[in-house]
């Protein structure tokens, strides 16, 4: 693994934060959100701010931009010095001047961060209109120029496109162009690649680096992904509960972390090398999927339209107690397959057999009795539990629907709380009283309460912090061993897939490009697409949990198409 080892100590200091304290507005005595943090970034340097959700990473960046939500958070002490200019005392007008000219920001979700009703070219040009006296044609020329610099294709067309007409990667390029059009000294990037596919992520990281080199920009890069950190950082600060617990050059931090918290964080990063598969089951498969096909659209009043083939010719089966992972990028059709199997949508072709019954064409009414064989855990634990129901009610509803007496269902719910490691009194509480990881445990308990044969986990750990992710993956493993449930695990994250799957199926554009045992597919991928996915996984040469390089980096011999 090659780390950045540039010496930047002589470069000009761009950002200096000293003893910065941010707290709840009007409540200086309450627990601060940021507690006296120090931070330095020099011209040309990439400083990564890592930590779990709620650690204060984003608050730090918003404070630097002067964009703290006024009625919730306020700076209560310390200073933020941007090239000699003290931000914490600046007026609103001064701050507006500073933004885009001296300090600019790009955000996590490029879809929601761009205004959906304005053309993207106009949105870039607006920065120039606000801060410069350029004429209309000069502003447009400059906009086109920066769009070319961020390697957008067909710039004239993209200029007058609306955000929803562009891909995620293109939108993030627009955001970067918008942030850099006035050549600011400091670029703050708040999880800019988290919402993107790995291959797109790689391109965007390269682009930021290229722009940084060209303009000598200092970059404050916020992320929770240690892989990304390993790829791009010069220096790293680790945050926990509003404090910076450790700050060091990248190699030092990854090889010899000083603080327990840092070690814990690194140990939780899943390894890209696949775990050994479980013994092959002798039992008959619980789920057989045969030439499954799903075409969206294709109707039309006046003429037949083509339709989108979201999945075609997908064939696999899963035996009890085993886990099959479907991996692929967004739009590959992996979630479509999961939804077809759950019959949340009706497949347009092929067969799905669950517990010896073909269900792909069962009527809604007949399907009802088969639902208990299939249960699903969704990605976002904040939205998958009814906020107005107690945990007990959510857990018992399903079994009671299928005729379990209430007392028995309650008893089982209590057992399940123990299984997922939550206190018994959790049953009487409401979802908002739990953290994301706890809610996902509840969601798993809810699914298991139905005693299903097959559990579908649709990106079930993607919204969780790594340390929580590891616990939830363990729990899934445990549940599987105990009840012999077969699991279909949908994920975009190869590290997660390597940790939990026995078999893997790689999808691209609705088709299966490669399938087989996880160890074989992830260690010796045969298809170019699988190879490019693994190549793009950031930090894949580093074994974070053991603070050293991987002895044998997963893959990849031969050229990449």
């Amino acid at each position, binding site marked *: 693994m090659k780390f950045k080892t540039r010496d930047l100590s002589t470069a000009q200091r761009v950002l200096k934060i000293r003893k910065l304290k941010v707290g709840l507005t009007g409540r200086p005595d309450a627990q601060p959100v940021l507690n006296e943090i120090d931070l330095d970034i020099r011209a040309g340097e990439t400083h990564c701010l890592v930590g779990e959700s709620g650690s204060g990473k984003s608050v730090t960046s918003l404070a630097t*931009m002067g*964009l703290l939500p006024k*009625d919730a958070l306020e700076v209560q002490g310390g200073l933020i010095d941007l090239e000699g200019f003290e931000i914490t005392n600046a007026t609103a007008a001064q*701050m*507006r*001047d*500073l*933004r*885009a*000219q001296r300090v*600019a*920001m790009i*955000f996590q*979700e490029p879809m*929601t*961060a*761009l*205004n*959906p*009703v*304005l053309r993207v070219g106009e949105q870039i040009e*607006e*920065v120039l209109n*606000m*801060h410069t006296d350029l004429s209309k044609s000069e502003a447009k020329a400059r906009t086109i120029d920066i769009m070319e610099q961020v390697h957008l294709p067909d710039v004239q067309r993209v200029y007058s496109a*609306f955000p*929803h007409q562009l891909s995620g990667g293109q939108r993030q390029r627009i*955001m970067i162009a*918008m942030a850099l059009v006035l050549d600011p000294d400091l670029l703050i990037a708040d999880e800019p690649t988290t919402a993107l596919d790995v291959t797109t992520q790689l391109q965007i990281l390269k682009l930021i680096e290229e722009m940084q080199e060209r303009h000598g920009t200092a970059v404050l890069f916020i992320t929770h992904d240690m892989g990304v950190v390993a790829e791009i950082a010069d220096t790293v600060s680790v945050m926990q509960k509003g404090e910076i617990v450790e700050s060091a050059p990248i190699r030092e931090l990854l090889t010899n972390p000083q603080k327990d918290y840092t070690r814990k964080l690194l140990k939780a990063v899943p390894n890209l090398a696949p775990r050994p598969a479980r013994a092959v089951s002798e039992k008959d498969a619980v789920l057989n999927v045969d030439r499954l096909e799903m075409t969206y659209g294709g109707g039309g*009043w*006046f003429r037949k339209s083509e339709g989108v083939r979201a999945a075609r010719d997908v064939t696999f089966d899963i035996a009890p107690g085993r886990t099959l992972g479907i991996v692929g990028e967004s739009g590959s059709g992996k979630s479509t397959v999961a939804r077809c199997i759950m019959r949340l949508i009706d497949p347009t072709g092929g067969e799905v057999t669950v517990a010896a019954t073909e269900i792909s064409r069962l009527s809604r009414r007949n399907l009802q009795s088969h639902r208990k064989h299939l249960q699903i855990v969704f990605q976002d634990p904040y939205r998958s539990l009814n906020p107005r129901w107690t945990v007990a009610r959510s857990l018992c509803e399903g079994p009671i629907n299928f005729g379990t007496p209430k007392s028995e269902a309650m008893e089982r719910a209590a057992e399940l709380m123990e299984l997922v490691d939550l206190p018994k009194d959790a049953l009487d509480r409401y979802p908002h009283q739990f953290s994301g990881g706890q809610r996902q445990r509840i969601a798993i308990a809810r699914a298991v309460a139905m005693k299903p044969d097959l559990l579908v986990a649709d990106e079930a750990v993607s919204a969780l912090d790594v340390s929580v992710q590891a616990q939830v993956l363990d729990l899934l493993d445990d549940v599987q061993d105990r009840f012999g449930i077969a699991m279909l695990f949908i994920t975009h994250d190869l590290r997660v897939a390597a940790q939990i799957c026995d078999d893997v199926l790689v999808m691209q554009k609705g088709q299966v490009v490669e399938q087989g045992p996880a160890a074989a597919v992830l260690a010796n991928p045969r298809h170019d697409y699988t190879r490019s996915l693994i190549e793009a996984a950031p930090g894949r040469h580093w074994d974070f949990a053991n603070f050293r390089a991987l002895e044998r980096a997963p893959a990849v011999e031969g050229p990449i198409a």
Partner: protein
Amino acid sequence: MFGYILKRLLATIPVLLIVAVFVFLLLRLTPGDPAAILAGDAATPAQLERIRDRLGLNDPLLVQFVTWFGQMLKGDLGTSLISNTDVVDMVSDRLGPTINIALMTIVISVLLAVPMGVIAAWRHRTWIDFAVMSFSVLGFSVPVFVIGYILIQIFAIELRWVPVQGYASPSDGIGAFFSRAILPSLTLATIYVALIARMTRASMLEVLGEDYIRTARAKGVRENVVLFRHALRNAAVPILTIIGTGFALLISGVVVTESVFNIPGIGRLTVDAILARDYPVIQAMILLTAGIYVLVNLIVDVSYSFFDPRIRY
């Protein structure tokens, strides 16, 4: 887009057809003999028979409907039982004042309410927000005729700026039209200002929490640009819905105001027709109202795509 409008227009046919059936049955299924209702208490049997004959009441129901429907398609809705004039002429004479007042009301409401809602959302939970919200509660709760009489008392009787009552069409001179239309429009506008301001505020509050608003601020964009360029257009769809529904309600709901200000519009025509049991006129009014609702809804739906490029038909 054109295909979508065509599709929508086709879809209005069943709606209007159901309304037409209802309107037809209104007269036929009223308890008692329609002819007797139409003729009034003092009718002789000979008069009744003449009316039955004229209305074709001796034919089977289906034949009656086909005849009536065919005439309706030709634009013949019969003659008024009271004034004996053509119903279509009566209604179209009265439609002008109502539509003019309604349009003016909507323009006033939008011009006042949208900025009020935007500023209330921007200054969320400050005194400005509370003031706007209080005003909107007031606008909802004070009856229209009270506001009408208060405005007359102040601006017509005390200050003598405008006439007390009456109507002049714009073709009689813009000044004459405005001086007579302003008070009824303001009266009607109170409730719509309240409604639209509330909706604008709610919609803006939601939009102001979006990521792209933060992006705009991160670009160093001025607040007024953030509000009106970045936020308002995104907040437009629910506001448009309210304005459209409001306009349609206005056309059919101007009865009280037209009475207070003595305007010869369809509101009063309807009331008079109901009081006099002038069934052909009532039928025409129901058809007209249904048509206006359908048309306004179509215009609103099409206008969405003008504000939000993601909506394409």
